[in-house]
Protein backbone atom coordinates (compact mmCIF):
# COMPACT_ATOMS: atom_id res chain seq x y z
CA UNK A 1 0.00 0.00 0.00
CA UNK A 2 1.28 3.43 -0.95
CA UNK A 3 0.37 6.66 0.79
CA UNK A 4 1.01 10.33 0.31
CA UNK A 5 -0.08 13.28 2.42
CA UNK A 6 -0.33 16.70 0.79
CA UNK A 7 -1.40 20.00 2.28
CA UNK A 8 -3.44 22.34 0.11
CA UNK A 9 -4.10 26.04 0.53
CA UNK A 10 -6.75 28.33 -0.89
CA UNK A 11 -8.23 31.76 -0.31
CA UNK A 12 -11.41 33.59 -1.13
CA UNK A 13 -11.08 36.42 -3.63
CA UNK A 14 -12.31 39.01 -1.13
CA UNK A 15 -15.01 40.35 -3.42
CA UNK A 16 -17.38 37.48 -4.26
CA UNK A 17 -20.03 36.10 -1.93
CA UNK A 18 -19.59 32.63 -3.39
CA UNK A 19 -16.83 30.92 -5.29
CA UNK A 20 -14.58 27.93 -5.71
CA UNK A 21 -11.18 27.83 -4.05
CA UNK A 22 -8.15 27.76 -6.32
CA UNK A 23 -5.91 25.28 -4.55
CA UNK A 24 -2.16 25.45 -4.20
CA UNK A 25 0.44 23.23 -2.58
CA UNK A 26 4.21 22.94 -2.38
CA UNK A 27 4.13 20.13 -4.96
CA UNK A 28 1.80 21.87 -7.39
CA UNK A 29 3.31 23.62 -10.38
CA UNK A 30 0.01 25.40 -11.07
CA UNK A 31 -3.17 25.85 -9.09
CA UNK A 32 -6.23 23.64 -9.51
CA UNK A 33 -9.88 24.27 -8.77
CA UNK A 34 -10.61 20.64 -7.94
CA UNK A 35 -8.72 17.43 -7.18
CA UNK A 36 -9.18 14.42 -9.39
CA UNK A 37 -7.34 11.41 -7.99
CA UNK A 38 -6.23 8.39 -10.00
CA UNK A 39 -8.56 5.44 -10.27
CA UNK A 40 -8.35 3.31 -7.17
CA UNK A 41 -7.09 6.07 -4.94
CA UNK A 42 -8.82 6.94 -1.73
CA UNK A 43 -8.59 10.51 -0.49
CA UNK A 44 -8.90 11.17 3.21
CA UNK A 45 -9.20 14.72 4.40
CA UNK A 46 -7.56 14.80 7.81
CA UNK A 47 -7.65 18.39 8.98
CA UNK A 48 -8.99 21.76 8.04
CA UNK A 49 -7.99 25.23 9.03
CA UNK A 50 -10.06 28.30 8.27
CA UNK A 51 -8.79 31.77 9.04
CA UNK A 52 -9.76 35.35 8.28
CA UNK A 53 -13.26 36.69 7.72
CA UNK A 54 -16.41 34.76 8.51
CA UNK A 55 -16.94 32.09 5.89
CA UNK A 56 -18.76 28.85 5.22
CA UNK A 57 -16.76 26.26 3.30
CA UNK A 58 -18.37 23.31 1.52
CA UNK A 59 -16.74 20.07 0.42
CA UNK A 60 -18.27 19.06 -2.91
CA UNK A 61 -17.88 15.93 -4.93
CA UNK A 62 -18.74 14.96 -8.47
CA UNK A 63 -19.15 11.52 -9.94
CA UNK A 64 -17.90 12.57 -13.36
CA UNK A 65 -15.65 15.55 -13.75
CA UNK A 66 -15.21 14.85 -17.47
CA UNK A 67 -18.77 16.00 -18.22
CA UNK A 68 -19.03 19.44 -19.76
CA UNK A 69 -21.03 20.63 -16.72
CA UNK A 70 -20.27 18.30 -13.84
CA UNK A 71 -22.85 17.94 -11.10
CA UNK A 72 -21.31 18.85 -7.76
CA UNK A 73 -22.84 17.42 -4.63
CA UNK A 74 -22.27 19.04 -1.25
CA UNK A 75 -20.86 16.54 1.23
CA UNK A 76 -20.29 18.74 4.23
CA UNK A 77 -19.59 22.21 5.47
CA UNK A 78 -17.42 24.04 7.95
CA UNK A 79 -18.36 27.42 9.40
CA UNK A 80 -16.08 30.15 10.58
CA UNK A 81 -18.89 32.12 12.20
CA UNK A 82 -16.88 35.26 12.94
CA UNK A 83 -13.48 36.61 12.00
CA UNK A 84 -10.71 34.52 13.52
CA UNK A 85 -9.33 31.02 13.17
CA UNK A 86 -11.05 27.66 13.18
CA UNK A 87 -8.91 24.53 13.34
CA UNK A 88 -10.46 21.11 12.97
CA UNK A 89 -8.22 18.18 13.62
CA UNK A 90 -9.30 14.75 14.62
CA UNK A 91 -7.76 11.39 15.26
CA UNK A 92 -9.93 10.13 12.45
CA UNK A 93 -10.27 11.59 8.99
CA UNK A 94 -13.07 14.04 8.37
CA UNK A 95 -14.12 13.11 4.84
CA UNK A 96 -13.28 10.14 2.64
CA UNK A 97 -13.61 10.00 -1.13
CA UNK A 98 -12.89 7.03 -3.34
CA UNK A 99 -12.14 7.15 -7.04
CA UNK A 100 -13.98 4.23 -8.56
CA UNK A 101 -13.29 4.85 -12.23
CA UNK A 102 -10.96 7.83 -12.27
CA UNK A 103 -13.71 10.36 -12.98
CA UNK A 104 -14.56 11.34 -9.42
CA UNK A 105 -13.27 14.66 -8.11
CA UNK A 106 -13.76 16.98 -5.17
CA UNK A 107 -13.44 20.68 -4.55
CA UNK A 108 -14.01 23.32 -1.91
CA UNK A 109 -16.39 26.24 -2.34
CA UNK A 110 -17.17 29.22 -0.13
CA UNK A 111 -20.14 31.27 0.91
CA UNK A 112 -19.84 34.64 2.66
CA UNK A 113 -22.53 37.12 3.67
CA UNK A 114 -19.93 39.91 3.52
CA UNK A 115 -17.20 39.14 1.00
CA UNK A 116 -13.74 39.43 2.54
CA UNK A 117 -10.51 37.47 2.60
CA UNK A 118 -10.61 34.03 4.20
CA UNK A 119 -7.97 31.38 4.02
CA UNK A 120 -8.39 27.61 3.83
CA UNK A 121 -5.84 24.93 4.56
CA UNK A 122 -6.51 21.21 4.51
CA UNK A 123 -4.53 18.01 4.52
CA UNK A 124 -5.31 15.11 2.20
CA UNK A 125 -3.98 11.61 2.49
CA UNK A 126 -3.95 9.80 -0.85
CA UNK A 127 -4.02 6.04 -0.39
CA UNK A 128 -3.51 3.43 -3.08
CA UNK A 129 -4.92 -0.04 -2.78
CA UNK A 130 -6.60 -0.21 0.57
Amino acid at each position, binding site marked *: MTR*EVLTFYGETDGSSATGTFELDSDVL*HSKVSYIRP*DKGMECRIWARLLAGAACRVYVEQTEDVTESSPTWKKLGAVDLSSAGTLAIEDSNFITKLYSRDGKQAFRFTWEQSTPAKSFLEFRVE*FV*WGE
Partner: protein
Amino acid sequence: MADRVLDENGFVREGEHVLIVFPAYNSVLPLRVKAVVNKNANWWNYGPLPYTFSDIGVEGVVKARSCTDGFRFKDRTGRLTGEQAGDMFYHNKPSKLIHAYVDIKPHLFRIYHEIPSGVKQYTYMEAVTFTTSVDEYTSDFGYTTGVVEMFFLPGFHIDWFVANWTNMNLRTNVMIKFAEYEVELPTDPKLIFNLMMRRVPSYWWTLPVTSSRVEFDRMFSDIYKFPAEVKGIPLYRSYEEEKALREIPDLIKEVVIA
Protein backbone atom coordinates in the same frame (compact mmCIF):
# COMPACT_ATOMS: atom_id res chain seq x y z
CA MET B 1 12.58 -6.28 6.94
CA ALA B 2 15.96 -7.21 8.38
CA ASP B 3 16.77 -10.89 8.54
CA ARG B 4 19.79 -13.10 8.06
CA VAL B 5 20.12 -12.15 4.39
CA LEU B 6 18.88 -8.55 4.28
CA ASP B 7 19.95 -5.71 6.50
CA GLU B 8 17.61 -3.10 7.98
CA ASN B 9 17.76 -1.06 4.75
CA GLY B 10 16.71 -3.97 2.58
CA PHE B 11 20.17 -4.67 1.20
CA VAL B 12 21.92 -8.02 1.01
CA ARG B 13 24.41 -8.44 3.80
CA GLU B 14 28.04 -9.05 2.97
CA GLY B 15 28.71 -12.76 2.62
CA GLU B 16 25.09 -13.58 1.76
CA HIS B 17 23.66 -14.55 -1.62
CA VAL B 18 21.26 -12.98 -4.05
CA LEU B 19 19.53 -15.08 -6.68
CA ILE B 20 18.45 -13.18 -9.77
CA VAL B 21 15.68 -15.08 -11.53
CA PHE B 22 15.09 -14.75 -15.28
CA PRO B 23 11.57 -15.98 -16.10
CA ALA B 24 12.21 -15.59 -19.82
CA TYR B 25 14.98 -18.19 -19.63
CA ASN B 26 13.79 -20.24 -16.65
CA SER B 27 17.23 -19.64 -15.22
CA VAL B 28 18.96 -17.99 -12.30
CA LEU B 29 22.13 -16.12 -11.59
CA PRO B 30 23.33 -16.84 -8.05
CA LEU B 31 25.72 -14.25 -6.70
CA ARG B 32 27.53 -13.91 -3.42
CA VAL B 33 27.93 -10.38 -2.11
CA LYS B 34 31.59 -10.05 -1.22
CA ALA B 35 31.41 -6.41 -0.22
CA VAL B 36 29.09 -3.43 -0.17
CA VAL B 37 31.21 -0.61 -1.51
CA ASN B 38 29.06 2.22 -0.18
CA LYS B 39 28.26 0.64 3.15
CA ASN B 40 26.41 2.99 5.54
CA ALA B 41 26.22 5.70 2.87
CA ASN B 42 23.42 4.56 0.67
CA TRP B 43 21.01 7.50 0.65
CA TRP B 44 21.05 9.78 -2.32
CA ASN B 45 18.80 12.76 -2.95
CA TYR B 46 18.74 12.70 -6.73
CA GLY B 47 16.63 15.85 -7.13
CA PRO B 48 13.72 16.34 -9.54
CA LEU B 49 12.71 13.61 -11.93
CA PRO B 50 15.05 13.89 -14.94
CA TYR B 51 12.33 14.65 -17.46
CA THR B 52 10.88 17.88 -18.83
CA PHE B 53 7.53 18.24 -20.56
CA SER B 54 8.12 20.68 -23.39
CA ASP B 55 4.94 22.66 -22.75
CA ILE B 56 5.76 23.08 -19.06
CA GLY B 57 9.47 23.63 -19.43
CA VAL B 58 10.42 22.82 -15.84
CA GLU B 59 12.45 19.71 -15.14
CA GLY B 60 10.73 17.30 -12.81
CA VAL B 61 7.17 18.55 -13.20
CA VAL B 62 4.95 15.71 -14.31
CA LYS B 63 2.08 17.12 -16.28
CA ALA B 64 -1.50 16.35 -15.28
CA ARG B 65 -3.20 13.49 -17.14
CA SER B 66 0.05 12.64 -18.92
CA CYS B 67 2.85 10.14 -19.03
CA THR B 68 6.50 10.86 -19.61
CA ASP B 69 8.39 9.28 -22.45
CA GLY B 70 11.01 6.76 -21.38
CA PHE B 71 13.78 8.39 -19.37
CA ARG B 72 16.88 7.33 -17.48
CA PHE B 73 18.54 8.66 -14.38
CA LYS B 74 21.21 10.84 -15.96
CA ASP B 75 24.40 11.69 -14.10
CA ARG B 76 24.10 14.98 -12.25
CA THR B 77 27.68 15.02 -10.96
CA GLY B 78 29.30 15.55 -14.35
CA ARG B 79 31.90 12.96 -13.44
CA LEU B 80 30.53 10.00 -15.33
CA THR B 81 31.26 9.58 -19.00
CA GLY B 82 30.05 7.52 -21.93
CA GLU B 83 26.81 5.65 -21.47
CA GLN B 84 26.84 6.39 -17.74
CA ALA B 85 26.47 10.10 -18.40
CA GLY B 86 22.92 9.51 -19.55
CA ASP B 87 22.19 6.59 -17.25
CA MET B 88 23.94 6.52 -13.89
CA PHE B 89 22.86 2.95 -13.27
CA TYR B 90 24.35 1.60 -16.48
CA HIS B 91 27.54 -0.45 -16.15
CA ASN B 92 29.21 -3.37 -17.83
CA LYS B 93 31.22 -4.87 -15.03
CA PRO B 94 30.42 -8.50 -14.27
CA SER B 95 31.63 -8.17 -10.69
CA LYS B 96 29.28 -5.26 -9.95
CA LEU B 97 25.63 -5.36 -9.05
CA ILE B 98 23.61 -2.31 -8.06
CA HIS B 99 20.60 -2.82 -5.83
CA ALA B 100 18.40 0.25 -5.56
CA TYR B 101 15.15 1.48 -4.05
CA VAL B 102 13.87 4.42 -6.08
CA ASP B 103 11.38 6.66 -4.34
CA ILE B 104 9.65 9.13 -6.68
CA LYS B 105 7.69 11.65 -4.60
CA PRO B 106 4.86 12.47 -4.29
CA HIS B 107 3.49 8.94 -4.32
CA LEU B 108 0.73 9.72 -6.78
CA PHE B 109 2.25 8.21 -9.90
CA ARG B 110 2.02 5.03 -11.88
CA ILE B 111 5.54 3.88 -12.65
CA TYR B 112 6.37 1.65 -15.61
CA HIS B 113 9.60 0.19 -17.01
CA GLU B 114 11.02 -1.00 -20.25
CA ILE B 115 13.52 -3.76 -19.51
CA PRO B 116 15.68 -3.53 -21.51
CA SER B 117 15.13 -0.10 -23.01
CA GLY B 118 12.56 -0.18 -25.80
CA VAL B 119 10.93 -3.43 -24.68
CA LYS B 120 7.56 -3.44 -23.01
CA GLN B 121 7.44 -6.78 -21.27
CA TYR B 122 4.20 -8.67 -20.98
CA THR B 123 2.35 -7.75 -17.85
CA TYR B 124 -0.59 -10.11 -18.12
CA MET B 125 -0.93 -13.55 -19.67
CA GLU B 126 1.55 -12.98 -22.50
CA ALA B 127 -0.95 -10.68 -24.18
CA VAL B 128 -0.97 -7.35 -22.39
CA THR B 129 1.89 -4.91 -22.19
CA PHE B 130 1.76 -1.58 -20.48
CA THR B 131 0.49 1.44 -22.33
CA THR B 132 1.03 5.08 -21.54
CA SER B 133 -2.22 6.27 -23.08
CA VAL B 134 -4.34 8.52 -20.88
CA ASP B 135 -6.95 5.93 -20.12
CA GLU B 136 -7.57 4.44 -16.71
CA TYR B 137 -8.38 1.01 -18.06
CA THR B 138 -5.89 0.30 -20.85
CA SER B 139 -3.06 1.56 -18.67
CA ASP B 140 -3.98 -0.62 -15.71
CA PHE B 141 -1.37 -3.33 -16.14
CA GLY B 142 2.31 -3.32 -15.38
CA TYR B 143 2.65 -0.34 -13.10
CA THR B 144 3.94 0.02 -9.60
CA THR B 145 3.43 2.80 -7.09
CA GLY B 146 5.60 4.15 -4.34
CA VAL B 147 9.13 2.90 -3.82
CA VAL B 148 10.45 0.75 -6.68
CA GLU B 149 13.09 -1.88 -6.03
CA MET B 150 15.43 -2.58 -8.92
CA PHE B 151 18.64 -4.49 -9.58
CA PHE B 152 20.88 -3.07 -12.27
CA LEU B 153 22.68 -5.81 -14.12
CA PRO B 154 25.47 -5.12 -16.59
CA GLY B 155 25.12 -4.32 -20.24
CA PHE B 156 21.64 -2.91 -20.76
CA HIS B 157 19.59 0.17 -20.00
CA ILE B 158 16.26 0.34 -18.23
CA ASP B 159 13.82 3.05 -19.27
CA TRP B 160 11.45 4.55 -16.74
CA PHE B 161 8.00 6.01 -17.40
CA VAL B 162 6.01 8.02 -14.88
CA ALA B 163 2.29 8.57 -15.40
CA ASN B 164 0.24 11.16 -13.58
CA TRP B 165 -3.47 10.47 -13.97
CA THR B 166 -4.47 13.17 -11.49
CA ASN B 167 -5.44 16.65 -12.70
CA MET B 168 -2.47 18.29 -10.95
CA ASN B 169 0.84 19.30 -12.52
CA LEU B 170 3.10 17.81 -9.86
CA ARG B 171 6.63 18.74 -8.86
CA THR B 172 8.76 15.72 -8.03
CA ASN B 173 11.71 14.75 -5.95
CA VAL B 174 13.56 11.46 -6.25
CA MET B 175 15.22 9.81 -3.28
CA ILE B 176 17.31 6.75 -4.02
CA LYS B 177 18.93 4.38 -1.63
CA PHE B 178 21.26 1.95 -3.23
CA ALA B 179 23.96 -0.58 -2.54
CA GLU B 180 26.87 -1.15 -4.86
CA TYR B 181 27.78 -4.79 -4.44
CA GLU B 182 31.03 -6.50 -5.32
CA VAL B 183 29.81 -9.96 -6.27
CA GLU B 184 31.15 -13.37 -7.22
CA LEU B 185 29.58 -16.47 -8.64
CA PRO B 186 29.69 -19.41 -6.22
CA THR B 187 31.58 -22.27 -7.82
CA ASP B 188 30.33 -25.11 -5.66
CA PRO B 189 27.51 -26.81 -7.64
CA LYS B 190 26.05 -28.25 -4.45
CA LEU B 191 25.76 -24.76 -2.97
CA ILE B 192 24.17 -23.43 -6.17
CA PHE B 193 21.62 -26.25 -6.17
CA ASN B 194 20.88 -25.69 -2.48
CA LEU B 195 20.34 -21.99 -3.14
CA MET B 196 17.81 -22.92 -5.82
CA MET B 197 16.07 -25.30 -3.46
CA ARG B 198 16.04 -22.64 -0.74
CA ARG B 199 17.99 -24.94 1.53
CA VAL B 200 20.51 -22.13 1.84
CA PRO B 201 18.98 -18.70 2.53
CA SER B 202 19.32 -16.11 -0.19
CA TYR B 203 17.48 -13.09 -1.50
CA TRP B 204 15.39 -14.06 -4.51
CA TRP B 205 14.64 -11.31 -6.94
CA THR B 206 12.85 -11.86 -10.22
CA LEU B 207 13.80 -9.60 -13.08
CA PRO B 208 10.39 -8.78 -14.57
CA VAL B 209 11.16 -9.99 -18.07
CA THR B 210 9.03 -12.52 -19.86
CA SER B 211 10.59 -12.49 -23.31
CA SER B 212 14.15 -13.28 -24.27
CA ARG B 213 16.12 -10.40 -25.70
CA VAL B 214 19.45 -10.02 -27.43
CA GLU B 215 20.57 -7.65 -24.65
CA PHE B 216 20.25 -10.44 -22.09
CA ASP B 217 21.90 -12.91 -24.46
CA ARG B 218 24.84 -10.54 -24.74
CA MET B 219 24.98 -10.06 -20.99
CA PHE B 220 25.27 -13.80 -20.41
CA SER B 221 27.74 -14.52 -23.21
CA ASP B 222 29.82 -11.35 -23.60
CA ILE B 223 29.91 -9.99 -20.05
CA TYR B 224 29.50 -13.01 -17.80
CA LYS B 225 31.13 -15.39 -20.33
CA PHE B 226 28.63 -18.18 -20.12
CA PRO B 227 29.02 -20.64 -23.03
CA ALA B 228 27.07 -19.74 -26.15
CA GLU B 229 23.40 -20.68 -25.85
CA VAL B 230 23.62 -20.84 -22.05
CA LYS B 231 21.52 -18.14 -20.45
CA GLY B 232 22.25 -18.46 -16.78
CA ILE B 233 21.95 -21.58 -14.70
CA PRO B 234 18.77 -23.56 -15.34
CA LEU B 235 16.29 -23.51 -12.50
CA TYR B 236 16.54 -27.23 -11.77
CA ARG B 237 13.69 -29.14 -10.24
CA SER B 238 14.05 -30.66 -6.81
CA TYR B 239 14.53 -34.18 -8.21
CA GLU B 240 17.26 -33.07 -10.62
CA GLU B 241 20.06 -32.77 -8.09
CA GLU B 242 22.26 -35.34 -9.76
CA LYS B 243 21.81 -33.70 -13.14
CA ALA B 244 22.51 -30.27 -11.64
CA LEU B 245 25.69 -31.37 -9.93
CA ARG B 246 26.85 -32.92 -13.21
CA GLU B 247 25.98 -29.98 -15.46
CA ILE B 248 26.71 -26.87 -13.39
CA PRO B 249 30.54 -27.17 -13.41
CA ASP B 250 30.51 -27.13 -17.22
CA LEU B 251 28.08 -24.25 -17.37
CA ILE B 252 30.15 -21.99 -15.14
CA LYS B 253 33.71 -22.99 -15.94
CA GLU B 254 34.31 -19.98 -18.18
CA VAL B 255 32.19 -17.53 -16.23
CA VAL B 256 33.95 -14.41 -15.05
CA ILE B 257 32.24 -13.03 -11.95
CA ALA B 258 34.82 -12.58 -9.24
